[in-house]
């Protein structure tokens, strides 16, 4: 059947709209990507001449190197701790009935409501009052609090979708509760755990507001280092950092995808 002209108009306007929306979503990155190759020392757009020198600058600038190492450390340790605690809490919330379940759930979810700067400020005051050193562990603590709700949710959802018949089958075959956990529950929950951990690591890696309160020169994270840099210089180095940043996260996701198939990890299957 031949399409009416009006159908063609709808068809094409739909496609154009879709392209525009996708373009709009991608626009910030496209602009930054182009700007990172600008030879000029001012963040102007579009560039008139091209260069890689800002990429070199990223690796030469000490604060960025240090910040990157700090950020990776904090994200790694923080995500691991949040995953351990969050998975435990999610398991308890999913499997047991108890009096203060809704209270526990509320406390675990509360960082979603409390702004990041409040959490940062709170720990800053606390550490000052207790005269704790402003070490990297303070930053880790802040990050754990911030990412915990996301980890709990993520693991909780995979536990909800988990078929308890697997555990019952294993039990009937003579497996002790510990053995069931180690050979059945954990391996089958692995995608959910990886997704929770990954989510936590990326959130922690991106975190800026709360970190700003609790870092010092030594412990500053990459986003804080970037913020400090932009207050002093206005050259395209930051654009180069952004590109490297996006590339790194993409590589991590790619590796996870190769290992676990991302659809499964992100629970979108």
């Amino acid at each position: 059947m031949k399409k009416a002209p009006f159908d063609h108009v709808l068809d094409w306007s739909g496609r154009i709209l879709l392209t525009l929306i996708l373009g709009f979503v991608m626009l910030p990155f496209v602009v930054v990507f182009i700007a990172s190759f600008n030879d000029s020392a001012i963040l102007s757009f579009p560039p008139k001449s091209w260069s890689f020198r800002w990429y070199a600058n990223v690796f030469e600038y000490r604060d960025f190197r240090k910040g990157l190492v700090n950020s990776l450390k904090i994200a790694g340790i923080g995500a691991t701790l949040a995953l351990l605690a969050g998975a435990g809490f999610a398991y308890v919330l999913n499997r047991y009935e108890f009096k203060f379940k809704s209270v526990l759930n509320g406390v675990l979810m509360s960082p979603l409501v409390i702004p990041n700067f409040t959490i940062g400020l709170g720990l800053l005051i606390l550490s000052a009052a207790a005269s704790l050193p402003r070490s990297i562990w303070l930053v880790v603590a802040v990050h754990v609090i911030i990412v915990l709700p996301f980890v709990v949710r993520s693991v909780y959802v995979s536990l909800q979708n988990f078929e308890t018949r697997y555990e019952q089958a294993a039990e009937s075959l003579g497996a002790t509760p510990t053995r069931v956990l180690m050979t059945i529950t954990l391996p089958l929950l692995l995608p959910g755990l990886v997704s929770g951990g990954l989510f936590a690591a990326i959130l922690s890696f991106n975190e800026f507001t709360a970190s700003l309160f609790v870092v010092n020169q030594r412990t500053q994270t990459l986003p804080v280092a970037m913020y400090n840099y932009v207050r002093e210089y206005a050259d395209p180095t930051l654009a180069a950092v952004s590109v490297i940043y996006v590339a790194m996260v993409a590589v991590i996701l790619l590796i996870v995808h190769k290992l676990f198939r991302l659809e499964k990890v992100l629970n979108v299957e």
Partner: protein
Amino acid sequence: MSSENAPNTPPKTCEVPAVQIDGVSKSFSGTVALEPVWLKIRKGEFLTLLGPSGCGKTTLLNLIAGFLEADKGELFINGELVTQVPPHQREIGIVFQNYALFPHMTVAQNIAYGLRTRRVPKVETADRVREALALVKLEGFAGRRPRQLSGGQQQRVALARALVIRPRVLLLDEPFSALDRNLRTAMQVELKEIQSRLGLTTVFVTHDQSEALSMSDRIAVMSRGRIRQIGTPPDIYDRPQSHFVSNFVGDANMFQATLKEKTGTLVQLDVGGTRLTLDTYQDELPEPGQVTLFARPEQCHLTKAGQPGTIPATVALSVYQGSYAEVHLDCLAAETGRVMQRVPASEAPEEGTAVGIALPASGPAIYDLQGSFS
């Protein structure tokens, strides 16, 4: 009254049963899932728990397996008290409806799981896995993953996994409901063969009455948390003791009737003006008054209208079924206004034909109007 027909009272003891359930009951947050049940399952017996969903059959199965803890009562396996024993020490094999094969393990690893938990030596494990695969005719599938198998093959693996540990009791939780019809029949025959060859005590949960009738040594018909009747398949099908059992197992034609007189098992009835004398098989008969008369379609036959001793009816619809036709009849005396008879397809009467329904002198039963028993 024989103990067969009194499932809710404790029967007398003789040899050690494979499974003994003594007054076990279970409620979930105030809702009764299972009223106190007494039941003994003989060694090597194939016992079916049959009933609609929510009747408590799965609850009873989970109690035997140990996945649920009984509120009251005691449970014995081979004479040993297991009420407090956790599932992993009960030595019970289970096949679930969705098979619950471990997706991250191969077929061989699935089957070997129960042997590894028992620390069976490697060589023996390999032998027993091979034997189990041969038993369910899946040689050559050892290295496959569960998702690479068809439904029937998955079920065989689940069966092999449950049997390889030489369980004291095999529990089957609706294992055929995910299979299509042809495969289902084939698997039923195969399972029944394996079960009787190994002399396995088996508890089978199903809502499918034809499965129950074809496979069981005994059937326990359940509804609303109680065992309504327990007996051999012919006991259940030919001599149902209640309205519920008559209706749930097989087809039932139900009529409104008045019980005039009873002498022993002989009863005088008035069915919509037709006077009938029947010899019933029941242990307990209702008091004279309004009752429900039950007869299987195959016990009755259709006659010309107006024959003495027949219940008048009119043909509403004939449904062709190949070898036979289902004749649906409008009948004033019927409980729901309709009854059904099967006749050879060539003899199906026209719609609107007035006919009579003739009942046999023995075979039918009468129940209290409420439809309840005991």
